[in-house]
């Protein structure tokens, strides 16, 4: 079993939808577990890297300082990094805020939005130093660290995730027929 590849996964500024899609590989997860072991990942709830990994899957873009830190950790500990899903690749929905000044976003979220205007009478803004700091915009992962592969989709289909992992783990070239790369 010692030659199994080691996989780590994380969700940064994402919705965990890509991880859900990952779980959609269904019973193939039993095959997968023969081929790989998981390290840091929400799938087995390992919080910190305990060994060097072969493959890191990144869901979500980079919206705060904690995301940056985690992403850099992944780069340090994984031989291959894969951005999986629209948010990791292009920022996705969270990046909609990129067109607005951050100050406006914060005001809307904590002071003026219809769901908070009554409940935050003291006008408290989240500024505890324990909290991650927001970045000026949401970055795609490859603008922060080097990313080796990109798996598009919102979320990427389970079959595509399976095919990709299988190709990476068995060190074969992935087959990408026309239907797979055509999106409309």
């Amino acid at each position, binding site marked *: 079993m010692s030659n199994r590849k080691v996989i780590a996964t994380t969700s940064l500024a994402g919705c965990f939808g890509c991880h859900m899609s990952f779980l959609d590989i269904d019973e193939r997860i039993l095959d997968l577990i023969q081929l790989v072991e998981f390290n840091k990942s929400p799938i087995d709830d390992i919080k910190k890297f305990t060994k060097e990994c072969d493959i890191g899957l990144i869901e979500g873009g980079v919206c705060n*300082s904690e995301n*940056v830190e985690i992403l850099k950790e992944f780069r340090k500990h994984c031989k291959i990094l894969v951005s999986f899903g629209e948010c990791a690749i292009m920022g996705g929905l969270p990046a909609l805020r990129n067109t607005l*000044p*951050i*100050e406006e976003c*914060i*005001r809307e979220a904590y002071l003026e939005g219809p769901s908070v205007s009554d409940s935050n009478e003291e006008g408290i*803004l*989240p*500024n*505890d*130093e324990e909290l991650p*700091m*927001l*970045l*000026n*915009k949401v*970055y795609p992962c*490859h*603008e*922060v*660290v*080097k990313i080796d592969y990109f798996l598009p989709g919102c979320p990427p289909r389970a079959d595509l995730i399976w095919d990709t992992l299988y190709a990476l783990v068995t060190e074969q070239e992935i087959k990408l027929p026309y239907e797979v790369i055509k999106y409309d």
Partner: protein
Amino acid sequence: MDSNRVEEIIANYNRDKTRLMDILIDIQTEAGYIPATAIPVIAKRTDTSQAYVEQTVSFYHFFRREPSGKYTVFLNNSVVAFMMGRDKVARTFEEEAGCKFGEVTENGLIGLFDTACIGMSDQEPAALINGKVFTRLTPFRVREIVRNMKKGKPLDELSTSGYGGGKNASDLIRAEVRNNVQRQGPVMENDYTPGTVLREKLKHFSPDEVIWEIKLSEIRGRGGAGFPTGLKWEFCRRAQGEKKYIFCNADEGEPGTFKDRVLLTEYSELMFEGMALAGYAVGATEGILYIRYEYKYLEKYLKHVLEKMRKQNLLGKNIAGKEGFDFDIRIQYGAGAYVCGEESALLESAEGKRGEPRFKPPFPVEKGYLGYPTVINNVETLCTTVKIMQFGSEWYRNLGTHESRGTKILSISGDCRYPGIYEMEWGYSVNDILDMAGADDVQAVQVGGPSGSLIGPDEFDRTICYSDLSTGGSFIIFNNTRDILQDVVMNFMEFFIEESCGSCVPCRNIPWLLKQKLEKILQGHGVWKDIEDMEEWAGMMRINRCGLGQTAANPVVSSLKNFRALYEEKIQKGKRFDEGFNLEKAVIESCEAVGRIPLI
């Protein structure tokens, strides 16, 4: 502008939605912008929707949505303008006027805007002010012009530069534009009396025989694509259609090209006669000269020439006494869009729509203007066909080289002593041309404009012809003081970003991405991967719909090919990744917004 006047203008064009460009141009010219209130009126009267009108208005650079100043200055920002001191000229405009480019002064007197090449590369920096051309601008002249604007003087009195030579000085043009004809070849030779071909030659030639003669001459289109002209006419003649059209493409928008401007000024009769000849050959009764808005200063003169030709029976009914030979020409203006030089985009524009290229086939010779078979020829091509008919295909075949017959009119600009237009037989080398134009110490030459190729000294022995260095005529010279990447490639990429019609995804995005990469490399953050990415991404441009889109990455492609060392020397050695992300900088704004000290 009151709505009655808008109604009047619409009525002048029979409330025809295919004349939307004319309607909008008239409103723009009179009001200085397209008032929002005019749009619903146009939509209602032409039986279209507001969205239909809006999409056309928003497409063209010269249609303004807001008042743009009593005097609206469009200062050219092409590469040659910068080489000839545009920076200082622009700064002086800003200082004297008291507003930045892209703005209008508070009192609404002066608006300053950038515009792409206006076809004056041999006399830069140049600007259009309310449609009038001002060339060879210097800070001194700008101060004078702005001072006169502040005094409210009419356009003609803004500057005391005198008129350019030839017909530029005529009462109907009165422009300070110079022709700078440096070399006159057989096409531009003044050995021609207007009307000779229509009156004398056509007595002996049937339409089929005209086409045969043109085919024998082996002339190919002079706009750049080089399609055999005789074949094009033959296709159109054979095509089924109750009406046929002849278009003259005078939308020369390729930066560095200005030969059509000179032909339009000095040889318009030759050109109109060429259109009539083409009309005779293919059986068309209507011709349209599609001309770029930048050349609107020629309008009065061109209309006068058409009127004169009608009086001489060289246009109209039974031309030159030939029973059933009916042909007339109208002028259609564009409104500032490079892509309209592409023939199918030109047709869309002439039909009053956004200038987005069509899918081909069908080609315009089968289904062109308003769905009728249409021939679209360049100004120079049409002028040449008349000369071919006069002197014979044999005469023409003896000019140029075996596979590139005849001559080509080159527009030469940049670092040389004698910028201007040169009519040359095909087959001269780049070295010959540089020698002729008086260019020393040359680092690079851009042949065929930004969409053509940028070549260095080791390729100066290549020849100008269809099979080697093909060109629509633009020839921009850069000497060794120029920074090729920063001054040239960057300028060209900005041009293509601005001028993409936006239809095809690669053309809309890749030039922008390439510019980002180039900026990154120039700022010293580049890595090898950036060069690889640029090459790979530029390859995707081939899936764009039109020829212009397919070549829009050429400044990068050809500089990477021929000036690779310039890129490589700026790349960080031994570094594999650098996207320039800086956490400290990225958190400053949000920390300020919530009132905390960044902790990194």
